[in-house]
């Protein structure tokens, strides 16, 4: 018995040591293109909205180029910008366009994120002005009859604090979160769709990718236009849809060869399935 314990313990120690060994032998940031293909290590940090997508992209890129290791860390768009600037990260992730003071950096758009309003399919309302949406979300408009619908109380479906869709929604309407009076607060998009599908008087907002797919799959929801533009992934991709934002990879002026290769890969058509699976919209180049 005791011998067995020793054997197992030694084996564990050895495997740990081996793990450390390979870690150390991988040189940091080689960014070299050698004859066998790409190899080296990339650090990608920033927006928590993009991070799950970036991890999927990195996984596929690593499969294509076994010599490459990509380390994805989330921490907000601000961190992505500052890490890209300071060189801590090879690529920063920012779920917004670059600001005026950030012209020392280059943004490479990999996808777009659009948020649309959804109501129950039986709701006769086909359009709401931005003012009406604000009134609904701040509890000044409580019945669909005042918004051109039937006599039905409005159930306001809102998202939990910190969610990306909530930020897009609030910043488009220029609302402060504490001003919103919600009847239901949901976590992810799927939860939002199920909630609106289950209550005839509900209104909510979710990622367009999710809403479009679920409406096609037969969920009883209806996508409302925002600012007169129909809520479709095509309109998000073309940049027409107002309640949307770009998802950017941010680099310094001259990114290394490996970083450039990874960004090119992320902008190519072969990753569109990954982008769609994360409910984002691929952009045409």
């Amino acid at each position: 018995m005791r011998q067995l314990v020793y054997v197992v313990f030694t084996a564990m120690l050895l495997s740990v040591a081996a793990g450390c060994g390979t870690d150390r032998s991988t040189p940091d940031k080689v960014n070299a293109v050698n004859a066998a293909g790409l190899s080296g290590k990339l650090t990608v940090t920033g927006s928590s909205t993009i991070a799950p997508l970036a991890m999927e992209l990195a996984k596929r890129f690593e499969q294509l180029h076994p010599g490459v290791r990509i380390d994805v860390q989330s921490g907000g768009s601000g961190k992505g910008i500052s890490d890209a600037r300071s060189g801590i990260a090879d690529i920063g992730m920012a779920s917004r366009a670059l600001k005026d003071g950030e012209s020392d950096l280059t943004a490479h758009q990999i996808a777009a994120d659009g948020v649309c309003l959804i109501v129950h399919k039986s709701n006769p309302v086909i359009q709401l002005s931005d003012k009406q949406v604000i009134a609904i979300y701040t509890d000044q408009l409580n019945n669909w009859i005042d918004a051109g619908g039937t006599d039905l109380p409005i159930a306001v479906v809102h998202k939990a604090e910190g969610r990306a869709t909530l930020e897009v929604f609030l910043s488009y309407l220029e609302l402060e979160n504490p001003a919103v009076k919600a009847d239901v607060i949901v976590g992810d998009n799927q939860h939002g769709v199920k909630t609106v599908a289950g209550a005839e008087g509900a209104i909510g907002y979710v990622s367009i990718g999710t809403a479009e797919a679920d409406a096609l799959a037969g969920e009883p929801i209806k996508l409302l236009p925002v600012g007169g533009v129909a809520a479709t992934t095509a309109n998000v991709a073309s940049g027409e849809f107002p309640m949307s934002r770009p998802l950017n990879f941010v680099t310094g002026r001259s990114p290394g060869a490996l970083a450039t290769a990874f960004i090119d890969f992320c902008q190519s058509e072969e990753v569109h399935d990954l982008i769609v699976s994360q409910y984002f919209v691929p952009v045409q180049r």
Partner: protein
Amino acid sequence: MTLSCRNISFPFNADRWLTRLTRLSACVSAAIVLLVITFLLLESWPAFRTIGVSRFITDESWHPLSDRFCLVPMITATALTSGGAVIFAAPLGVCSAVFSQFYAPPRIAAWHRRLVELLAGIPSVVFGLWGLVILVPLLAHLGGSGQSLLAATLVLALMIMPTVALTSSSALSSVPAELIRGGAALGMKRWSIVWQIAIPAARSGINTGVMLATARAVGETMAVLMLAGNVPEMPSAIVSPVRTLTANIALEMGYATAEHRSLLFVSGLMLMGVVSAGVLIAELVRGRRHV
């Protein structure tokens, strides 16, 4: 405890080893709780240091990104949903156990037990989905969106009922047969045997089951998250939406950074507080009954 002395039939001192082994296991299981609490305290310390303790009670609402940190509605919601669930589930569970132990024919009792075991094994997310698609639209007729204190309490009750039923059932089945036969020999009706002999004799087992069920209700996250509406405000009616402490953590953890994260650990600490308070009250009640 009597330690067996060295003897020739057994090569080494088994009792000494068993003592060491059980002592070690006891230490480990106690240490885990202490480790978790220490970890929670460490992680929530930054929030306490910058915000202080009182603002978690006196602030007007919970908007952690806008500097408002009131946790009271969520503590209330956790207490209400799990308390309500136990009030629904405990009588149901005990009655189901009494039925299968004393009234049901053996074959039906076996099937009944299997069904209850199956109910206990249904994952909470399935309960949540069922509640969201079936129960919530029904409850919406009572007013509001349907995602409410009531929906969460009802589904929680369904989820913890099997725990009460199964533990009560095994507690009842381990009541000594002599007691039951003695009662029958005295001419007691089945009703009196059940309520005056079997249940009092099985009380500590049933209590344990109810405690376990309460703990499960307090800790349940997924189903409650899908059904309670999650608005962090004091409920004004049974159809008002509420947010429990567990739902609060699950909703915001994935997107929380730095201080916000630390605030969620405060939620976790409060949850430990609610559970400890529950255990303490149960101990007190039990203690008073014994006197």
